């Protein structure tokens, strides 16, 4: 495929990996623990597993899969709320596909659908709006989900609904913002990170300036990264280079997509319809101040939480789950007590097992580095 295969070239990858190896080897002298780099975005986690990137990196580099999968960090209480809206007889509840499996305290949207709720998968909020146009006697609710990446399309849909005077469309808003979340991770006392891969698609909207504090206050390098395997390798190399040189700054590897100052039109639409919530609950991370958005008073008529008087229940994460520690990079998925036992992709307890972007599901499905290396040894032995 043109414009994609170029970013998956194994020959170029070999060159990058040897450069990475050289820096890592130099840096590991005298170090007692691996260099820990967090990819904030779930899209990166997905690519890392899909292309087996961990498997070609040296042992001295550890990738920590961060909180950037919006499906994974959705708390049980919010899922319960959305099921309660979806189960109202007048409602057509529309959602992105992978949100359907997230477990609530009683059921997921997939189960609610089987029980008779009218839940429909859409590819864009505009699809939900056209459902509202076609079904004037029903209430169409869109499950707004995601970081700043998906926020503009939701905002523009609300503006479009307003422009057309469509009143049977509303938004169950669970959009979240990346910056307070990264800050919460950095402030956590057990944090052991050395640098970050910044989220490429979020940055396409918000630009690079919002990350400055990570370099200035916390002295950690950030490289805003693309999602193809060569993007990720190059970005890792750039983080290592900063670490090696003892500097911490914000760099943009994904400059073919990410403009320095973000996207004005998108930001304007977001600013027009959304305002920050005082706090928002995250699965595994708890409540984080100013980490979520809701519709402004001017657009309250499109707010499903107001329209359907949603109770906003809070449900504690299952006690046995260690999603929070995995998200912060304190433990690896397979160190969690319930990983692969009570918690599997078929019966996910923690949200990290739900989406293919979740670290636990990815490890469960694609196997961890240790196990894959074991494979290789056995195979080589057998051939010898």
């Amino acid at each position: 495929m043109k414009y994609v295969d170029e970013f998956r070239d194994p020959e170029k990858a070999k060159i990058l990996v040897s450069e990475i190896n050289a820096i890592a080897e130099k840096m590991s002298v005298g170090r007692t623990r691996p260099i820990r780099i967090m990819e904030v975005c779930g899209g990166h986690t997905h690519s890392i597993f899909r292309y087996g990137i961990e498997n070609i990196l040296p042992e001295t580099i550890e990738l920590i899969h961060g909180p950037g999968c919006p499906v994974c960090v959705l708390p049980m209480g919010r899922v319960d709320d959305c099921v309660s809206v979806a189960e109202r007889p007048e409602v057509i509840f529309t959602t992105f596909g992978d949100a359907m499996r997230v477990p609530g305290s009683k059921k997921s949207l997939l189960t609610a659908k089987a029980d008779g709720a009218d839940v429909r998968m859409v590819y864009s909020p505009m699809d939900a709006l056209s459902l509202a146009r076609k079904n004037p006697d029903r209430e169409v609710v869109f499950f707004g989900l995601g970081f700043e990446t998906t926020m503009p399309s939701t905002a523009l849909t609300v503006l479009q609904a307003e422009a057309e005077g469509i009143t049977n469309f509303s938004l169950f808003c669970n959009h979240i913002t990346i910056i307070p979340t990264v800050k919460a991770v950095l402030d956590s006392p057990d944090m052991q990170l050395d640098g970050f891969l910044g989220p490429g698609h979020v940055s396409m909207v918000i630009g690079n300036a919002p990350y400055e504090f990570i370099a200035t206050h916390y002295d950690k390098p950030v490289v805003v990264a693309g999602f193809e395997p060569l993007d990720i390798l190059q970005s890792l190399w750039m983080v290592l280079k900063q670490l090696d040189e003892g500097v911490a700054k914000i760099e943009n590897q994904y400059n073919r997509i990410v403009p320095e100052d973000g996207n004005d039109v998108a930001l304007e639409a977001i600013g027009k319809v959304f305002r920050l919530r005082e706090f928002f609950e995250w699965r595994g991370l708890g409540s984080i101040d100013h980490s979520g958005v809701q519709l402004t008073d001017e657009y309250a008529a499109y707010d499903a939480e107001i329209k359907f008087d949603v109770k906003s229940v809070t449900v504690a994460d299952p006690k046995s789950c260690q999603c929070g520690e995995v998200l912060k990079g304190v433990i690896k998925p397979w160190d969690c007590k319930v990983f692969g036992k009570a918690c599997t992709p078929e019966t996910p307890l923690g949200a990290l097992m739900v989406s293919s972007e979740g670290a636990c599901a990815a490890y469960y499905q694609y196997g961890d580095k240790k196990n894959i290396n074991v494979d290789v040894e056995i195979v080589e032995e057998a051939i010898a």
Partner: protein
Amino acid sequence: MNDAQVKNSEVNLKEVSEPVSTRIRHGKLVSKVITLAHGGGGKAMRDLIDEVFIEAFDNASLNTLEDQARFELSDLATYGNRLAMTTDSYVIDPIFFPGGDIGKLSICGTVNDLAVGGATPLYLTCAVIIEEGMQVDTLKKIVASMAETAKKAGVQIVTGDTKVVERGSCDKIFINTAGVGVINESYQLGAQLAQAGDAILVNGFLGDHGAAILDARGDMNLQSAIESDCAPLQGLIKAVLDAAPGTRFIRDATRGGIASVLNEIAQSSKVAIEIDEGKTPLRTEVKGFCEILGLDPLYLANEGKIVVVVPDEEKQAALEAMRAHEFGADAAEIGQVLKGGVAGRVHMQTGFGGKRIVDMLVGEQLPRIC
């Protein structure tokens, strides 16, 4: 008309090559729309069966309208020493899609399920459940497609059943076909027979059907029409078995895609399997489709693709046999059974130089948010 055809109503597939009608009555449908009356057991139902099904499938056994098809055991025995039997139900939305329709699918699926076991597919049943309100012309189109595909697959539809249910009780039409075939003495195929060093082959581009169906649902409004690969594979499979008699196992990679078939082989044979992403045949359109939706083509359904496990020394013969066939032009070797490795595990060498595990699909593939 030769003697064999006149002699009795039983089916003799070899000799009924030139269809000569043995129909005993010709009903005439009055209605243009299927109603509950057409499933009621009375005249309306008889007329529907006559004008739509008998008219299209026209063969000696069906035409007698007995409650069962009857076969001469001695005829069956000329094909081999073991009967193979299978059944499958077909429910699909939309019922007409690029590259096929539910009728074609209902024949190909059952024919292929017989053929992958080494059987010569011979006879099929056809049971339909129709939602009231379907246009008779739509039904005729589906049944004509079944008849045409059956002819191509060399099978006869020898008995059937028709039910009509109230609107909303089924989605337009559900079809069940059961099939009977006979397996030749010399074929011994099984998922447990894969051995270290065996080659893993496929007969062409993967994931076309799954992508075509998702695309045909229209939610994505994509420009390029991906066509389903839906095809009857008995001829291709016979060619493979003739060319590579040591073939260990064949399976059609339908729901769950080739990933599921490979996992079944690895688990049943207690072996490790490695496939190579670079050798896996994928159309550019399907690749792009999967990129956009965040789907993995290894898990997309196929309706005209098989996975073949052959001993390494016979792989070339098998590949050539497939490539010479109309449904195998793009056949490829995609991997091998490893010597050693973790038993029951499938992994893929990524084109990028990494390595990842290819596990069984859990639940349904759902498009990713971003």
